[in-house]
């Protein structure tokens, strides 16, 4: 399963056609249509925050519910920690690799979801520090096969 990063979804949902990444972003999403894609709960909440900021609270809430109900998306939740101690212990392993807190949270989800093969994002900083391969939408569209 391919997990789609919030940056890819933000470009799409805000229809940022002037962005130089727009065409590849749309092509990658078009090619993934029809298959089940993963979105981490942290990525989804990040997306909802950005959409709420730029398009209003109602839009953000609508989008959240729409992703939960989507047949084509699986929202990935990490195991719920029993305590703050456990959470710090878990997240520190990823923070120690130099990941931001958000990336560390996503890394925890990716690490606990064995079906994840690839993380799709424009951001190159977390590459090599996440537990799965990362690809940009441009790289994905250049591949002949994927999935």
């Amino acid at each position, binding site marked *: 399963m391919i997990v789609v990063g919030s940056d890819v979804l933000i470009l799409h949902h805000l*229809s940022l056609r002037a962005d130089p990444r727009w065409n590849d972003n749309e092509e990658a*999403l078009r090619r993934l249509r029809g298959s089940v894609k993963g979105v981490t709960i942290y990525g989804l909440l990040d997306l909802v925050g950005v959409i709420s900021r*730029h*398009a209003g609270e109602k839009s953000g*809430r609508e989008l959240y519910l729409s992703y*939960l*109900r*989507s047949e*084509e998306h699986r929202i990935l939740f990490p195991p719920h920690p029993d305590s703050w101690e456990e959470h710090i212990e878990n997240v520190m392993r990823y923070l120690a690799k130099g990941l931001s807190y958000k990336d560390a949270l996503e890394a925890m989800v990716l690490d606990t979801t064995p079906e994840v093969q690839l993380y799709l994002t424009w*951001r190159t900083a977390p590459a090599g520090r996440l537990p799965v391969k990362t690809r940009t939408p441009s790289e994905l569209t250049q591949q002949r096969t994927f999935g």
Partner: protein
Amino acid sequence: MADTVLLQVRVSSTLVRRIDELCSEGLYRNRSEAISDAIRMLLAKYSRTSPEARATALYLSGRLSRTGNPEELIFTPSTGRPHIEDDE
């Protein structure tokens, strides 16, 4: 007496024993009163939560009906031109 309805529900014998204990301790006069209080607490809990929180609970229990494609939702930015960072 308030308008009441006879509600037939199946409850585990363990739960009924615990409810009976609460009644024998004097916290409730009978099972009906205890169960009514439990229902009030349940309704209060969910009246405080948002539709998103309730939908998340349904999603996690596998009981949310799945339909539609969120990628069809396109929003027009109303607050300036968003800048999406391509890196940290």
